[in-house]
């Protein structure tokens, strides 16, 4: 359990800094720090077990059907990374307390930082790759917030967006790759996948999976050609850069490659893709870094280069190279975080981080200068510092690895990379801190307060300590982590400072000499570089984004131009195409069932239907007439339901027709009464052809289905057999609605309620806007009759009300066993109420029906939901129904089913939704009537 807490604590604790900021900045930083510290202590409590070679697991079922389980495990690699993330995170929290100014919302900063930290730790501890993907995406999102923390800076926002887009799209590719991988291995658990490396490498899907997963890893770790986002992310506050680009975000890609090493590494594909990408990144990043004047830009490209180095080592695919990669990850995290922190200190205290305006700071800021120069020395690979050791290992591995069958390629190129890295590290140390003291610094430079340099100081202590006593301090950690990377095949190594004179040492010395030479002749190289055109990645990226957006807009505008006709045409055309593809793609023949004889009544019905439809098409531009004809078609359809013995459907159809007519008439009052005739003849022909084809298709489909038996037998028998024993009702239709498919019905009434509320919300906002002024000046198109509430109608409607309500209750009660039910009853009651509104006026009726229809909808959904939950009390699944028999005097014995309560919910929701929708639509009319609704006319009765 505490294993899960390591990852979850930062998430849970993320809320605390936001609250504690009210108690001051120190309290805020302290809470954030203690959250991280707690996680760190929890992690360290597992140290003995991890160093003993154990793999600790914690498993929770989440969505087992999808293979997504909250499985966590802690092995050497996870421990190693989690230690870096939490340890450096703690130092960053201290550093940020002193770095952020009073204007910056510090609470928010720590919230983002903890969220990010939790996501990163989650990645390192996930056992399930789907869970890992979730944490992976969370790092993309939370780093977006961190990079764009200074919202007022356009560079910050653009940098954040670029980082999100590049790493986010890489993440998409990785999802696909992981799914393939899980499919090959037969499990989404890493522990299983890592053991099935042989099967994965032999699979024909190995290469696609590899490419997709590397797409995610390369974008995250800024490998060439995706390296361009990282320097733009430097617009973030320096603590963010120090954290994201030393130990965490960009290392996630390296972590993933290390994690997947047993499953994916060791093939030629892996070697050439990963090692090449790493090699190119290492050289290109280091080369650009030398010429960056912005200190953070310099460090950003040096990070790109160092990440390339680690990627290349992992790409070699040998256990020893993997061990070197792990060791370098540790060393890089220490010296690079320290370098970023000193860059932030210089920026903070001097007021600029432009290398051209700096120099000679060593006497003004002695502590900062010492820290920076030690870290830079390690970065350059100077002996006695930890960077030397792992760089030496890298050069040694490169010196005996063949590339394209050639022995010399890798050693030479690796040395070139090392030369550049010496040059940029030396430039950082020399151009900023050495040289003559200047007198044109933007502000007076001095060393920062203790809390600001202490985190960096602690890191360089580690740099030196590991450099001097590598085996004693880092040896066991590196060993246990590389054992995990290589599935236990890593060699047992004793890391020593002195190996004697070997190839690596000679290469190191060459790199040192050439690197310093390069810096000595810096001006010449700058001039040389200026002569060649260089592509600006941001411009290319922006152009690409703009083009993609333009293409998307073109497609969207083409499909969705606001014309309902076009939407309909698109949908119908798609249906025709899909249907035609299915029809012409398969074999088909005439139906086998004999057709039934035509009865005279059926013939009349058919005639009516055809005549009404044709008339409708002919008069379709006269909207009121269209409505009348729709009413006729609805009538015939209801009669058809009777004819085919479906009384439930017929009852529903009858009530729905009435409500539809009222709804449409309410709307039609404020719409044009004629549909404008399309001027463009081809469009009319397009519509005619589409409609004709779709009609023929549906007719053909109906004929095909009614003239043959069901492919796999009918499910009716099951429902008929189980309706009474299972659901306690003899009306199968109703039992299906409230029991067999009760969950569907539950979803549907929620949708119905939401639709009614949406009508309310839309009208509420629009009636208070411009529309209200237009309505106030609205003049009816046709002359109006005098009598607004005819007496005859008023009397008839009031006499009808009790009967209609009685019928409603009757239909509701019998619903479970005979045709009827909550839905129909709801419609009947709604109609009974609407008649009152129509006959006696809204004011009169509204004053008497003192019910809030919003609440009725909510109550309906609640009752239905509670009925479902009640089944849990009886320890049965949601919405399982039960029934029993109750005897009462006078009434006799009758059945009580829990489905009845569910039906009450349906009933209430239907009444609430219909009434809310109609009442709100009728408000438009009342606004027009009274010029803004301030003086409603009193009913005449």
């Amino acid at each position, binding site marked *: 359990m505490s294993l899960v807490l390591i990852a979850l604590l930062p998430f849970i604790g993320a809320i605390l800094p936001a609250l504690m900021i009210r108690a001051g900045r120190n309290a805020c930083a302290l809470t954030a720090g203690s959250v991280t510290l707690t996680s760190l202590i929890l992690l360290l409590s597992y140290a003995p077990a991890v160093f003993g070679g154990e793999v600790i697991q914690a498993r929770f079922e989440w969505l087992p059907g999808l293979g997504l389980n909250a499985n966590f495990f802690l092995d050497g690699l996870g421990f190693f990374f989690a230690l870096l993330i939490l340890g450096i995170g703690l130092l960053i929290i201290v550093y940020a307390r002193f770095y952020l100014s009073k204007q910056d919302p510090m609470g928010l900063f720590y919230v983002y930082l903890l969220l990010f930290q939790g996501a990163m730790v989650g990645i390192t501890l996930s056992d399930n790759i789907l869970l890992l993907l979730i944490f992976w995406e969370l790092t993309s999102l939370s780093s977006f917030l961190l990079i764009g923390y200074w919202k007022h800076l356009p560079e910050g926002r653009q940098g954040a967006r670029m980082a999100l887009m590049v790493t986010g799209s890489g993440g998409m590719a990785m999802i696909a790759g992981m799914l393939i991988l899980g499919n090959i291995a037969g499990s989404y658990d890493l522990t299983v996948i890592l053991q099935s490396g042989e099967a994965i490498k032999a699979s024909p899907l190995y290469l696609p999976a590899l490419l997709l997963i590397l797409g995610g890893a390369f974008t995250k770790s800024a490998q060439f050609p995706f390296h361009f986002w990282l320097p733009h992310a430097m617009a973030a506050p320096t603590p963010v850069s120090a954290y994201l680009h030393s130990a965490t975000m960009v290392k996630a890609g390296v972590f993933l490659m290390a994690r997947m090493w047993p499953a994916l590494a060791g093939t030629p594909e892996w070697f050439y893709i990963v090692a090449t990408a790493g090699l190119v990144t290492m050289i290109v990043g280091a080369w650009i870094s030398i010429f960056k004047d912005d200190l953070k830009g310099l460090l950003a490209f040096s990070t790109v280069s160092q990440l390339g180095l680690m990627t290349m080592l992992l790409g070699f695919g040998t256990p020893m190279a993997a061990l070197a990669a792990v060791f370098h990850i540790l060393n890089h995290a220490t010296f690079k975080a320290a370098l970023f922190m000193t860059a932030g200190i210089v920026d903070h205290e001097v007021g600029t981080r432009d290398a051209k305006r700096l120099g000679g700071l060593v006497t003004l800021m002695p502590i900062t200068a010492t820290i920076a120069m030690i870290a830079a020395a390690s970065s350059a690979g100077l002996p006695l510092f930890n960077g030397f050791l792992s760089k030496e290992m890298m050069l040694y591995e490169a010196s005996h690895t063949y590339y394209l069958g050639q022995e010399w390629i890798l050693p030479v190129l690796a040395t070139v990379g090392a030369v550049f890295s010496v040059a940029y590290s030396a430039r950082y140390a020399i151009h900023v801190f050495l040289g003559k003291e200047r007198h044109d610094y933007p502000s007076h430079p001095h060393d920062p307060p203790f809390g600001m340099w202490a985190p960096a100081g602690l890191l360089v202590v580690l740099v030196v300590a590991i450099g001097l006593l590598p085996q004693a301090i880092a040896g066991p950690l590196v060993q246990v982590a590389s054992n995990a990377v290589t599935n236990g095949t890593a060699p047992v190594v004793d890391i020593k400072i002195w190996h004697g004179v070997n190839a690596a040492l000679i290469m190191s010395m060459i790199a040192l000499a050439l690197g310093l030479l390069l810096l000595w002749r810096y001006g010449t190289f700058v001039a040389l570089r200026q002569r060649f055109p260089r592509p600006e990645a941001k411009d290319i990226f922006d152009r690409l984004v703009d083009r993609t957006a333009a293409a998307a807009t073109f497609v969207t505008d083409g499909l969705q131009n606001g014309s309902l006709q076009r939407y309909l045409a698109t949908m119908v055309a798609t249906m025709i195409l899909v249907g035609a593809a299915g029809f012409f793609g398969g074999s088909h023949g005439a139906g086998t069932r004999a057709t039934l004889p035509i009865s005279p009544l059926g013939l009349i019905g058919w005639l009516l239907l055809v005549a009404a439809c044709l008339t409708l098409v002919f008069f379709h531009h006269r909207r009121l*007439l269209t409505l009348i004809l729709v009413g006729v078609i609805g009538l015939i359809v209801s009669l058809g339901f009777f004819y085919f013995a479906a009384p439930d459907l017929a009852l529903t159809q009858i009530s729905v027709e009435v409500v539809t007519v009222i709804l449409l008439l309410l709307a039609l009052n404020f719409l044009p009464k004629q549909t404008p005739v399309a001027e463009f003849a081809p469009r009319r022909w397009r519509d005619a052809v589409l409609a004709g084809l779709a009609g023929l298709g549906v007719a053909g489909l109906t004929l095909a289905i009614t003239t043959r038996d069901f492919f796999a037998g009918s499910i009716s028998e099951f429902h008929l057999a189980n309706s009474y024993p299972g659901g306690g009702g003899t009306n199968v239709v109703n039992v299906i609605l409230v029991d067999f498919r009760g969950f569907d019905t539950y979803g549907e009434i929620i949708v119905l309620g939401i639709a009614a509320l949406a009508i309310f919300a839309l009208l509420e906002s629009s009636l208070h806007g411009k529309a209200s002024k237009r309505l106030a000046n609205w003049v009816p198109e046709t002359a109006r009759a005098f009598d607004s509430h005819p007496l005859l109608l008023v009397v008839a409607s009031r006499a009808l009300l009790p009967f209609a309500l009685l019928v409603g209750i009757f239909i509701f009660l019998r619903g479970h066993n005979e045709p009827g039910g909550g839905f129909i009853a709801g419609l009947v009651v709604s109609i009974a109420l609407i008649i009152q509104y129509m006959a006696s006026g809204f004011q009169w009726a509204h004053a008497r029906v003192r019910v809030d229809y919003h609440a009725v909808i909510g109550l309906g959904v609640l009752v239905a939901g509670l009925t479902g939950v009640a089944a849990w009390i009886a320890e049965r699944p949601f919405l399982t129904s039960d029934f029993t028999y109750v005897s009462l005097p006078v009434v006799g014995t009758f059945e009580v089913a829990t489905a009845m309560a569910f039906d009450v919910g349906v009933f209430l929701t239907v009444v609430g939704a219909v009434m809310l929708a109609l009442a709100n639509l009728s408000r438009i009319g009342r606004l027009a009537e009274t010029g803004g609704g301030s003086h409603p006319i009193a009913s005449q009765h």
Partner: protein
Amino acid sequence: MIAAAVTFGFAAIGLAVLLNLYRLVLGPGMPDRILALDTMVINAIALIMLYGIAQETTVYFEAALLFAMVGFVSTVAFCKFILRGDIIE
């Protein structure tokens, strides 16, 4: 006997519905068509009752009741629309 009566009833009402259809299609005015729809509903009630008698079942009678109760609401709504424009004032 009852069978013959029901058949005759079906024939008569079927003819009536066809005459309704004639009015519905040709009009000429909107009130003619609304009345055609209203009459059709009444004929539908008769058809349902006859069908129930012919099938010797009472299961359809509620539907006839429902038609009788709510069928006129559409007619009222249409008429009110023509007279006043706004059906819920």
